[in-house]
């Protein structure tokens, strides 16, 4: 399937989903979240329906590892020579939404996507022909988006690049049909900015994560869930199972591309309280499952040990080394061991996840 076809399918899918949802009754449409979270079991693969499997990306995937030592120079100019060797999405005349990670601010900690990376992503999508570029995020913990934009420098980046910012927490909302989803939620309210975009690009910060092991391009999409409906944090996603919510959001949002801030990353008690670790790469790709699996390998983490990545390998895209073409240095030559959160060795602590924020 061509990139164009992917984009058209995404838009058409969302329009149909929105129309279907609008026709349905809304009162009591969402399932109660009193229901227990979906339990991860080894039988997940057997439990997946043919319909769910049919949404999986077909064919091989490509992931680009673009060396970029620091945030000090124009990142787009640094990676530009490498772009010729990559399969990039066609954004010509498209409306593209870039979704950085701005979950929370902690002075001195690499919690959020660096502004220099966001600027590089804006330049890239413009280079790829985007007619309209919007930066959009719905921070997961803090209602105060204006503060976060200022504190993280992402607001200044938007202004400097003359790109509008949309607070997805307070954006107009559209009800989407989530029939056949993994959370068992029949409906999902998502921001109009996301639903109406021709393409969504995930621009995450690569970090360890104390509830799911690793957060990268797929988990980053939690930020599209609107606080005006689901709150801060988006606790429903935890109650319904973080891996299952991640998968549902992949299918509802259908992100077209990932542009990962893997320059200064986070290890240890991520995604907020960890410590900085230099990796020095921008990681890109159109298959977010492949991107996240590769990023996990760059952290010397087996993606099969990360539940949502393992599940994504069944219903989203490729996670096996044999199915992913890496453009750049061999992963093994640049991978580093990352200190993992305590929850990774003590799974009992994971029981707290439903009662915690990110």
């Amino acid at each position, binding site marked *: 399937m061509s990139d164009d076809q992917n984009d058209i399918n995404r838009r058409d899918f969302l329009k149909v989903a929105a129309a279907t949802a609008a026709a349905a009754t*809304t*009162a*009591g*449409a*969402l399932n*109660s*979240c*009193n*229901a227990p979270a979906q339990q991860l079991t080894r039988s997940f693969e057997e439990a997946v329906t043919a319909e769910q499997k049919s949404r999986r990306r077909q064919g091989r995937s490509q992931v680009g590892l673009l060396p970029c030592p620091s945030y000090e120079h124009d990142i787009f100019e640094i990676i530009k020579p490498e772009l010729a060797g990559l399969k990039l999405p066609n954004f010509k005349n498209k409306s593209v939404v870039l979704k950085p990670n701005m979950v929370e601010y*902690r002075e001195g900690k690499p919690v959020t996507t660096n502004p220099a990376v966001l600027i590089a992503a804006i330049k890239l999508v413009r280079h790829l022909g985007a007619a309209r570029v919007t930066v959009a995020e719905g921070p997961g*913990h*803090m*209602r*105060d988006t*204006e*503060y976060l934009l*200022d504190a993280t420098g992402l607001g200044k980046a938007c202004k400097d690049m003359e790109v509008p910012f949309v607070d997805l927490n*307070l*954006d*107009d*909302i559209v*009800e989407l049909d989530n029939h056949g989803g993994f959370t068992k939620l029949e*409906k999902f*309210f998502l921001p109009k900015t996301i639903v109406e975009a021709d393409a969504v690009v995930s621009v995450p910060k690569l970090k360890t994560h*104390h509830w799911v092991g690793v957060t990268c391009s797929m988990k980053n999409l939690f930020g599209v869930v*609107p*606080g*005006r*409906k*689901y*709150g*801060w*944090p988006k*606790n*429903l996603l*935890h*109650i319904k199972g973080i891996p299952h919510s991640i998968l549902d959001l992949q299918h509802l949002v259908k992100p077209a591309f990932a542009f990962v801030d893997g320059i200064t990353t986070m290890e240890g*008690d991520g995604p*907020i*309280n960890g410590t900085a670790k230099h990796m020095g790469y921008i990681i890109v790709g159109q298959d977010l499952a492949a991107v996240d699996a590769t990023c996990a390998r760059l952290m010397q983490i087996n993606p099969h040990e990360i539940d949502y990545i393992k599940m994504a390998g069944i219903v989203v895209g490729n996670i096996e080394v044999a199915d992913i073409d890496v453009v750049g240095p061999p992963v093994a030559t640049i991978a580093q061991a990352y200190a993992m*959160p*305590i*929850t990774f060795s003590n799974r009992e*602590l994971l029981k*707290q996840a*439903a*009662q*915690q*924020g990110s």
Partner: protein
Amino acid sequence: MAAPSQSEITTARAKALSFLSRNQKVGLVGAPAGDHKYGWFPYKAGGQPSLEATAWAALALRHDAAVAKSAALFIVGSQNKDGGDSTEPGAGRSDWNSGPAMLALRLLSEQHAQLAEQPDVKKSIKNGLVHLLDSRTEFYGAVGRLVLMLGRGPGALAYARGWPWYPGCFHWIEPTSYCLMALKFPRVPDSELYDRVIGFANQFITENACKDGGWNHGNARTLGSDLPSYRLTTAEALLALQDLKSTEKVQAALKYLQSQSALDSSSLSVAYSALSLSAYDLPVDQELHFLLKRQAPDGSFNAALIPTAIAALAFEAAAEPANHVLKYKKAIAVNSNK
């Protein structure tokens, strides 16, 4: 730092109210075309209706009887069958917006006697209050509660308990603060049941204070690490806890919030800080200076309805302390203002 002049504050408030007025829209999903009795506000100019934005904008504009009435009728008309509210009419299950919606409806009714006398408004408030009682986070089912009571006595059921953002989820500081405000203003409903519910919610907030004195979204400590407070959440929680003014927890939170006074921040955080500190009769000169500098020529703050409404309320509280809309009248005990 000298206080801003009265005329500066009054002018800034007038500009903010003008911005809000210009953004009031009319109509209601499902209402006959051209029915203009319902007035609502979006989060941003041109946006969809928002129960939360309508609540705060209507409170800022509450002295305008026509605006107050149309907003109150919008809240009444948007109410779900369970007595709660969603972020906008028809947007699924009742959620955390029930708190701000009920807060506004109760205060608007207090302000305008003719609203309070309307049967549909009365009924809406009654149903809304019952919904608040029923929509708290529940940790144990009926059987679980029975087992607890039989095993450990009635006292076992006296656990801290607040409100979730979304039904069936965990309780958090902000929705609990909104719902507490909805129960405490203009006064606590005359029933011991409400006192108990308020007591459990007060307990939840005070038990989850951060080490630095304030509150964040609700995790004071995670995996062995103390987490910092947020200025905004602390201001919101303090507005809800005025009946506990003399307690150590509230005094510590006030200290934290005052420690932020010299720091400019977002319009929302600064406006909420001013509104909250003034409710405790504490100085807000620095907050007001920051707000005056932050106001856009069109009267708005951050081009958004809620920060503009909160700023307008903060200006009003500074200029006319007797009109502070969220000042707890008798800050001694929960029952004291009946």
